[in-house]
């Protein structure tokens, strides 16, 4: 166990030494991996931020129920009592046609139009906040309410959010595909780096094979190197994105103040960052493993 640990420690040391022995090429590879990673990483972070907004809205849907223009006070009360017994409804609010007209008149640029109307064209309406439900059920509720005789039209106010949400899911699929392609690129970059290393260390590998080094001993420093390179590349990508978010947040502060909201972009979560590092280390390891398997067997002592 002690020997096993010390062998791994030595392999790690040799991998680090190799990394610092060729600082320029190591740095370049890491930056290349970092830039490749920053693309899906950046899109992923943006999607995450957008989704935080849209899914919040989409999961608590809002309906506007418009009554027929000729609806009487009795009709309104009828709808009101039916809504009170209806499932899935968190809360609802009645907006009479008079209040609606007042609201319209208060909107500054429509003031003129509203004042010049001969009679109130607006219907009575209910605004319904639903509980968190699935999109299918939302559609059911809409259909049921629409069939009531007093109802002219039912509108899902949060349809936009659902569409954005669906679009974001599509975006996530695109990120996944991008990540797969760039993960392959990472494997290839590491594969090539390790190939060159194996070839330049040909003499050393041949000698230690002759004096009894096992294949796993010979492989180990290369595998560590690949894993470190993958992880460092991912860290570089993470850093690029973090810097980008910081820069955007600084200008967002001004924008958010103008709209009197507190809106800012979130960084990649701790959990996501950790899995990014582990995943890229695994990919680097895999690239090194493939490369070593390919080229080590070619070096047989004569």
């Amino acid at each position, binding site marked *: 166990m002690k020997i096993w640990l*010390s062998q791994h420690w030595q392999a790690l040391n040799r991998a680090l030494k190799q990394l610092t022995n060729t600082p320029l090429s190591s740095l370049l590879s890491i930056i290349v991996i970092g830039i490749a990673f920053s693309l899906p990483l950046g899109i992923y972070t943006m999607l995450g931020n957008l989704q935080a907004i849209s899914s919040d809205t989409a999961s608590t849907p809002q309906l506007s129920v418009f009554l027929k223009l000729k609806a009487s006070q009795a009709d309104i009360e009828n709808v009101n009592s039916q809504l009170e017994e209806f499932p899935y409804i968190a809360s609802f609010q009645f907006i009479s046609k008079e209040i609606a007209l007042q609201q319209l008149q208060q909107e500054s640029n429509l003031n003129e139009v509203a004042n010049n109307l001969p009679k109130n064209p607006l219907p009575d309406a209910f605004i319904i906040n639903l509980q968190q439900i699935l999109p299918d059920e939302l559609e059911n509720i809409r259909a049921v309410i629409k069939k009531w005789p007093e109802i002219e039209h039912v509108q899902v106010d949060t349809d936009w959010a659902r569409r954005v949400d669906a679009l974001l899911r599509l975006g996530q699929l695109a990120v996944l595909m991008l990540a797969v392609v760039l993960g392959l690129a990472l494997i290839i970059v590491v594969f090539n780096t390790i190939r060159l290393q194996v070839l330049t260390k040909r*003499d050393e590998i041949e000698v*230690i094979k002759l004096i*009894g*080094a*096992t294949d796993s001993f010979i492989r180990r420093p290369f595998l560590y190197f690949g894993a470190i390179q993958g992880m460092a590349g991912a860290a570089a990508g993470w850093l690029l994105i973090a810097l980008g978010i910081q820069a955007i947040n600084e200008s967002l502060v001004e924008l958010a103040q103008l709209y009197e909201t507190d809106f800012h972009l979130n960084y990649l979560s701790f959990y996501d960052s950790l899995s990014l590092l582990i995943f890229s280390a695994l990919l680097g390891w895999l690239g090194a493993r493939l490369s070593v398997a390919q080229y080590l067997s070619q070096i047989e002592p*004569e």
Partner: protein
Amino acid sequence: MISFVNVTKRYPDGFEALKNVAFTIHSGELVLVAGHSGAGKSTMLKLIAAIERPTYGNILVSDQNVNALKKSMIPFLRRSLGLIFQDQKILYDRNVFANVMLPLQIRGFQNKTAAGRVRAALDKVGLLRKENAYPITLSGGEKQRLCIARAVVHRPSILIADEPTANLDVDYAQSIMEVFRSFHQVGVTVVIATHDTALLNDNRYRILTLNQGKLVV
């Protein structure tokens, strides 16, 4: 103990380097393998270390059948041997100390224990003062001593040397032979391939002579 049982080695190009060779070297023996270039000396030594595999016949090293060894077990066979190569195979990108350290490194020795053993091996071949020197600065004889130190640092029971005194002048060759003799005296089996006539005229040792791949009796 090293035993060859009717061993034939034919290379892929059809050249038969060894033809039906049989002999036994007992543990603790010092044996010289003689013969002119191309007689099969190097092939014989390579077969012992499983660097080459025989076409026919069996090779036993310390009661292991080398032919039957799985590929993954070959490193462990080589660890029981001390090998000195004709082309030396010194690594020029590191100093004398690091070169001798290699066999211990692959065994996972702790650095402290290993350093003591490396110095002991260097002391035995008289290179202790040169431990920080780079191999490029060493003379031919010193390089050969470096190879011996690397071959014995892990205390193998069998020492195998291919032309260790080639290209060395007589005095140097003799002092190298003294080193081998000292290992022989502490019970190490030593096999040396050579065509050095001065050495072969020394009748203290058993000599296996090869001629065109056949053992001359």
